[in-house]
């Protein structure tokens, strides 16, 4: 039964034929190999290896707008969860995808989101194996929310943890910071800003594999999502019990992102990214890690931004100007300010 509705109605959530048609036509038939099942049954040799561990993570994605320059909610739902697995040293294997859909959502939009997810999953080498759809009344959600969970396998011998970072380790990021956050700020429209910035959204599983081969001593990695680089470094410093020093000069920042931050009084260190991570590696493996990153498109802009240090337990930044300041955790979100 071909879906003839242009928009999702409550009937599509009711557990009957309309729901089955929506799920089959818009979702399961698109995810390859087809058959996003209510429950997936899976086998992977890597998981059976002695000493291998299973990695399991989840995130809900609620981005507004749902489609933005450089991506859409489906792209970040796949990349974000792949990245959460990857930064833990896991090879991502399988994703689940649960959709909460507002009554009235255009079915064409759902198709585009699902197409993005299928494409990104394929590129990232993961399979979307199970899923769910719920339809809620108009006004009960904001278009579409996607929650993905990811299962991966951590090969025996791989141990990544923020607590392992030690003074001397070098912090590398894989490209310019804040593009995603700045894109979303502009795309929301309420600030009436426009720019050519696009989200940095990207899956980093392959990149992490390459980094771990090039720098097997890598200690920890973190994707730089909510709260940006500043928050990730603070978390790592706290877990590691040592200081981290970064250099403002070294921070890769696009002029437009800096411009937007200047206009709104924001600090790009706290802007969200969806395709950026920081990895801490022993100093003698830093070059190898850098080269491995730069060999991939999503790591082209990789640079060393700082290192773990003794003597204090803060995140400090040497300003381009030669001064030093402390980069603390924020309380909440950064708010645009005028003074």
């Amino acid at each position, binding site marked *: 039964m071909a879906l003839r509705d242009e928009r999702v109605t409550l009937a599509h959530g009711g557990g009957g034929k309309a729901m089955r048609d929506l799920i089959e036509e818009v979702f399961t038939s698109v995810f390859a190999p087809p058959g996003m099942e209510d429950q997936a049954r899976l086998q992977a040799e890597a998981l059976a290896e002695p000493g291998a561990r299973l990695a399991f993570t989840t995130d809900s994605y609620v981005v507004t707008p749902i489609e933005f320059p450089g991506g859409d909610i489906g792209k970040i739902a796949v990349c974000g969860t792949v990245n959460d697995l990857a930064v833990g040293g896991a090879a991502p294997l399988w994703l689940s995808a649960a959709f909460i859909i507002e009554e009235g959502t255009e079915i064409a939009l759902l198709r585009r989101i699902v197409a993005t997810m299928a494409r990104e999953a394929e590129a990232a080498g993961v399979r979307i194996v199970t899923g769910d759809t719920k339809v809620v009344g108009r006004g009960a959600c904001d278009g579409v929310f996607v929650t993905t969970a990811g299962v991966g396998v951590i090969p025996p011998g791989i141990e990544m943890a923020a607590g392992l970072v030690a003074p001397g380790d070098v912090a590398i990021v894989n490209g310019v910071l804040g593009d995603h956050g700045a894109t979303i700020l*502009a795309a929301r429209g309420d*600030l*009436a*800003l*426009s*720019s*050519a*910035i696009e989200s940095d959204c990207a899956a980093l599983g392959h990149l992490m594999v390459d980094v771990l081969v090039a720098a097997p001593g890598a200690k920890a990695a973190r994707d730089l999502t909510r709260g940006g680089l500043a928050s990730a470094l603070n978390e790592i410093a706290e877990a590691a019990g040592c200081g981290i020093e970064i250099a403002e000069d070294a921070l890769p920042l696009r*002029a*437009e992102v*800096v*411009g*937007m931050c*200047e*206009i709104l*009084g924001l600090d790009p260190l706290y802007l969200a990214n969806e395709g950026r991570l920081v990895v801490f590696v022993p100093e003698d493996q830093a070059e190898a890690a850098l080269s491995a990153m730069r060999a991939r498109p999503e790591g082209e802009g990789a640079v060393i931004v700082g290192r773990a240090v003794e003597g204090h337990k803060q995140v400090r930044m040497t300003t381009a100007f030669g001064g030093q300041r402390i980069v603390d955790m924020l309380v909440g979100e950064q708010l645009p*300010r*005028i*003074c």
Partner: protein
Amino acid sequence: MCLGIPGQIVAITDESRQMAMAEVSGVRREVSVACVADEGPLSGLIGQWALIHVGFAMSLIDEDEAAKTLEALHDLGEAQEALEQMAAGDAALAGE
């Protein structure tokens, strides 16, 4: 207080409401140019730099004054460098 940022007027968007497009490092936002509009047509503002605050171009930037300030700072920098080099030379000579 009073976050302000230099932006360049790149287009007039609404002559009657005195609105123009300002650009800061490739980021654009419509701003009011009421405070910096002269007698003439607004198009005269295009290309000029202004200090932008809460969506208003508040003051045109005086490029000569900026250059003067920079020059003074530059001279000071050069002088300081010369001084340091001299000091370094002295130190080297003194075998420190």
